[in-house]
């Protein structure tokens, strides 16, 4: 399959589920009752009124996790591409091993620095 064609296929693949959901949501809109009132339409927070808006800055530790993920995922993608070459080739295996060693070293450095600890 040519790349332009498989792109079309993937777009179709994404639109198929969305089409199904839109039809089902349409059926839901037609069949379901619609009787909103103030209490029903308020945010569900166990019966009490919302004390403050939840749209506020979030804890910094979430960004640390995000950073770690970006680094590791980029390296994993590179390993995916390089990893297919290892089979039956010692030189390619050594090259990938060197790269993988850096990844592992990075993980242990992060571990020692306490970056993997989720402060309680």
């Amino acid at each position, binding site marked *: 399959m040519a790349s332009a*064609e*498989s792109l079309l*296929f*993937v*777009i*179709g*693949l994404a*639109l*198929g*589920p*969305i*089409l*199904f*959901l839109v039809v089902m*949501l349409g*059926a*839901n*809109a037609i*069949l*379901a009752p*619609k*009787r*909103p009132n103030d209490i*029903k*339409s*308020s*945010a*569900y*927070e166990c019966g009490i009124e*919302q004390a403050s808006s*939840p*749209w506020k800055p*979030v804890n910094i530790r*979430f960004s640390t*996790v*995000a950073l*770690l*993920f970006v680094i*590791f*995922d980029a390296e*994993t*993608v590179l390993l*995916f*591409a390089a*990893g*297919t*070459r*290892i*089979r039956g080739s*010692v030189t390619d*295996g050594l090259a*990938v*091993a060197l790269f993988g060693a850096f990844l*592992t070293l990075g*993980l242990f450095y992060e*571990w020692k620095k306490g970056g*993997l*600890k*989720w402060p*309680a």
Partner: protein
Amino acid sequence: MTFVWGLLWGLAAVMLIAGGAVVGVWWERKVAGRIQMRLGPQQIGPAGVLQMIADVPKLLFKEDIVPTGADKPVFRYAPLAVFAPVAMSVAVIPFWAGWAPLDSTVGMVFYLAIPSIGVLGILLSAWGSHNTLATIGGLRAAAQMISYEVPRSLAVLSVIILAGSLQPTKVMDAWQWWWVPLTFVGFLVYLIASIAEMNRGPFDLPEAESELVAGYFSDYSGFRWAIFMMGEYGAMISAALFGAAVFLGGYRWLPGVPGLVLFLVIAMLIITVVMWVKWTFPRLRQDHLMTFCWTVLTPLAIVQVVVAGVVALWL
């Protein structure tokens, strides 16, 4: 024309997942019932099987409540982004010798990359709800899902190294029976990380009912709520099928149709194990959850990759 085929396969994947989710809910209630020494559903039809047919129309007749404070377009349409990627990921799974709906040369990466888009949908729906519980749940889901992505990818990498290809059908062609004991640790890492990815117990902190009501979908009702439910079951079905294929050999054990049947049976066994895990283990704590991912699963997956790499040199 290719576009139409894609659309049709997308719809076929939805039917598989929606049907699987409906049967899965019934099966899970049965499994959970037996684990807790109850009978589970048994009133409607033999062994309660008609219960699942009653469940779907019920959801269609439920009011679709949109909270006044919510960011309405985001709240309404974010669930689509939760479900669509899960359905898309099914397309690269090799069901038959040399055949997958989308036989892509980078199918293994596609399978790992596409379902991760779901985390954006979860974050959007949580933020769009304008609800403190939902926001906390969404943030937890984001941190958890992106973290468990790393050991999961590394576990799949061990099979890719052994097969020397990123194309799922080629991986299946290269598959040997002795890869099962060799990559067993990788399979366990994959299974644990997959359970965390689909936010199921014992890793269901984003939707922990004892503290967050239902987490990121607290404010959802009617069919929009059902989309989250289908997304969760869909992720379970898709992860079980993929794991059964690339780690456990899927259809390779038997030729022809019995192979396909065996593949589906293995996938169902994996799903049952996932349910069993949910109903027997207590929920983890947030800091334990993150530490477990980075200091236990990731090193284990790296060891598995090294083992696979060393063996692959002689293949």
